[in-house]
């Protein structure tokens, strides 16, 4: 299904959806743009810049309460309260790389044996209305990891900016249901225009880089700590790259005392941190930042694709490059491994 929606109506769509959905959309606050719980009265900010953090929180919030323990003052036995995510969610204005990120979670959190109910429930109940990109940034490389600026994978609706509105294409039945709303009009010729725009955007990205040799070449460097130390020299071990990343799915679980009650929460964790693999004994198998950077790059471009049919655990959004305080470029590291010669 293909429809058209004006810019004004897109805002109205967001407002209407907000009545019975948890809507996440890029909103400008201060001088940044982040995904926020959208409410009537807010302004969508789809174009000024790509949201600083990916839309990952739509399906994998930074803090997920796993359960609560309530200790009543009259009853002796503590009560356990289940907190599985309720309700339906919509992510409006993510980019194709945002929509695609959750696909890398699926083979980990939704296997035959292991089902992460919290993730799966959100995954099931979240609609992605995605905006195709019309121009690549210097840090974009989605086309090199099997995607592209108008890749509809993972989206329910893909929007392409045409004139004063968007051509909207439904990719799933849930998306079609939304396109049936009266805010949408027929797209007419605008569909062709959209195709042309999308093609142009793809063309601007140029030749993709070939990562097919990456899994093997990175693995070949596994014991070469000199290589990784050189790559990691400027890394400051912060978590900006992993927390920006649409595909990073690691978490930590902690308990909090809240007075007489307590909560168990799951929060984003990041493999660049010393504590990530710190063992109870005090031993740390990844004791230096070189070990940890090796793991991050290796995981995304070698170990994960080895396990999951060659799919890179990377959407090519480039946020980790752009937001790195010291400008580490993951593309350069992979390339260095690929081109490595003794």
């Amino acid at each position, binding site marked *: 299904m293909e429809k058209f929606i004006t810019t004004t109506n897109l805002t109205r769509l967001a407002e209407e959806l907000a009545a019975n959905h948890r809507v996440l959309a890029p909103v400008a606050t201060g001088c940044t743009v982040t995904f926020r719980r959208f409410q009537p009265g807010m302004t969508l900010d789809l174009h000024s810049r790509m949201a600083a953090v990916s839309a990952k929180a739509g399906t994998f919030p930074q803090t997920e309460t796993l359960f609560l323990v309530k200790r009543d003052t009259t009853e*002796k036995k503590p009560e356990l309260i289940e907190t599985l995510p309720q309700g339906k969610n919509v992510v409006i204005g993510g980019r194709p790389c945002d929509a695609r990120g959750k696909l890398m979670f699926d083979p980990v959190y939704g296997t035959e044996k292991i089902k992460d109910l919290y993730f799966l429930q959100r995954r099931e109940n979240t609609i992605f209305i995605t905006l195709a990109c019309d121009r690549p940034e210097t840090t974009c490389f989605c086309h090199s990891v099997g995607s592209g600026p108008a890749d509809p994978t993972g989206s329910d609706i893909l929007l392409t900016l045409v004139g004063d509105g968007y051509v909207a294409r439904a990719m799933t039945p849930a998306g079609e249901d939304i396109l049936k709303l009266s805010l949408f009009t027929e797209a007419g010729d605008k569909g062709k225009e959209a195709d042309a725009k999308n093609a142009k955007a793809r063309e601007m990205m140029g030749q993709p880089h070939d990562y097919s040799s990456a899994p093997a070449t990175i693995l070949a460097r596994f014991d070469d700590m000199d290589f990784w130390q050189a790559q990691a020299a400027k890394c400051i071990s912060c978590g900006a790259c992993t927390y920006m990343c649409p595909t990073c799915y690691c978490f930590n679980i902690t308990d909090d*005392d809240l007075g*007489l009650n307590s909560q168990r*929460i799951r929060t984003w964790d990041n493999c660049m941190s010393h504590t990530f693999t710190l063992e109870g004994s005090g031993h740390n198998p990844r004791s230096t930042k070189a070990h940890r950077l090796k793991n991050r790059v290796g995981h995304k471009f070698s170990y994960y694709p080895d396990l999951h049919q060659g799919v890179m655990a990377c959407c090519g959004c480039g946020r980790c490059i752009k937001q790195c305080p010291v400008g580490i470029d993951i593309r350069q590291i992979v390339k260095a491994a690929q081109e490595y010669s003794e």
Partner: protein
Amino acid sequence: MRIGVFICHCGSNIAGTVDCPSVAATALTYPDVVFSTDTMYACSEPGQDAIIQAVKEKNLDGVVVASCTPRMHEQTFRRAVERAGLNRYMFEMANIREHVSWIGKTKDLNTNKAAELVRMAVEKLRRNRPLFAKRFETVKRVLVIGGGVAGIQAALDCADGGQEVVLVEREQSIGGKMAKLDKTFPTVDCSSCVLGPKMVDIAQHPNITLYTCSEVESVGGYVGNFQVTIRKKATYVDWSKCTGCGLCVEKCPSRKHPDTFNEGLCTAPSINIPFPQAIPKKAAINAASCIMLTKGKCGVCAKVCPVKCIDFEQKDELVTVDVGAVVVATGYDLFDWHKYPQYGEGRYKDVITSMQYERLLSASGPTGGHIKRPSDGKEPKNVVFIQCVGSRDRSVNRPYCSGFCCMYTAKQAILTKDHVPDSQSFVFYMDIRSPGKMYDEFTRRAMEEYGAQYVRGRVSMIYPQDDKLIVRGADTLAGTQVEVPADLVVLAVGAESARGAVQLGEKLRVAPDQYGFFVESHPKLKPVETNTAGVFLAGACQGPKDIPASVGQGSAAASKVLGLLSKKELESDPAVSRVNPGRCVGCGKCVQTCPFGAIKMIEDRFGNPKAEVIDTVCQGCGICTVTCPQGAIQLEHFTDNQILAEVNALCPPKMFANFE
């Protein structure tokens, strides 16, 4: 963890305004609390037995008692839980008496507050862990600082008790203020006749090492193991040779500097022995006035000395001794009366201090015991004594009573009559304070037998008229102004803390009060102890007191020292800081801030710098814990997590997940 909670009624002290059974019931809902009850007197023997019984029966591994202040009974209950087989640190107290029942009026608010204080204690206890004291040996030697009568008594008692004693005195001779006195009240017996033999005992006692002209330079270590450095100031006389013959004193051509022993009433030679009974009886050179030392020529003393003990090259010398305990007996100084403009600020020569008067009365004084007034050497007929000069006066920041001035003034009035039978004494006083054995009788005698005229009132001015001084004051009993023509005015100057007391206190970690007197551990029950273990107080350094009280305190301090050093080993408080080497990054900030030098840097087996606490030196203040950004050094029993647990118990954090 299995916690038991005991809510004490303290008779009606707590139960009067706190619903104790209700607090006990509420406590039962707290995490890990498996037993909770209220009890009439937790600290009584049956109360303690009940706790012990509950620990055993309910298999408790932690106890909370909500009762009075932990400053009162924490030790009591710690011992009780220890008897029950728990570690003494698996115990917490909630203060629901001093901080709740005695200050709050409203019962439901009090009850709620008590319950919350119990909850805080429970949350802290949940994070406590057993701590174990370390044992260590003590050095069997004691340092006594100050050789006045209190220090002399403490030193002799300790030495007689079998301990080695190091006695340090700042002046050239021991004896202190008492050595300057002519007679003592209320017996009017000769001061030096009483004190002299004790001074000789000091010199001759095999257990006592005496350092005069010496001061304590630094003190390190802790109870049982102090390291003390003593600065022996240069006397320019080799005391191992000096026989005290006095030839040098006789021949010294420089005799212009004020004689401090005689309170500046006369001058003294630059090489001197302060008084005939001085211990040690050795000569010393005053470097500031000695011609040789100031101008580089003279050396008469060196020439006349039969044993050639003069050494102009002598330097200060540092001596280090290890001691197990310290007695501080640094005494007092006299108030500087020049702050009072109404007494002429020094313009009138015949206004003198009571201590100067003592020297005039003394047979060994500058006038050979004849009262001669300083201006013209005439014998005074009318002598006016003014009391409370620098005592009980907020305007000069001396609101306290010096205690002994009433008595010595009465004594001096009596002695005045003895010396000059046709004299008349007048005493301006505020109140007569004579609460001692035979004291009030003594002041009565001064008035009734010796005819001293007591005028109750303050003196507003002294002015000269012809060769007299007119003393004008109020007679508050007669309600008039009076003017007394005086030949001599004696100011009963009060006591103030000895100069340097504050600095010495810093070295010893003994806090001075706002007037510089050292603070005892408890004003009634621990009068000679200080808050620093192993350091005791004797005499007027703790507050003004007279000779009998000073001697009594000297003996008291000695008995404390003997008790302490009679133990073979002491236990250290385990509530000290501890470094988690896994978190320590070796930055050394804790070392920098520790006031006790209790943290040292070591290297771990990989060569990384790490901090390490010396258990016995650490006093448990926790400055380091706040200094350490990584939280690597934690004060046991007051860890971050323990205090945060208390904070969180009072104000639970609000997270995303809210409980409505």
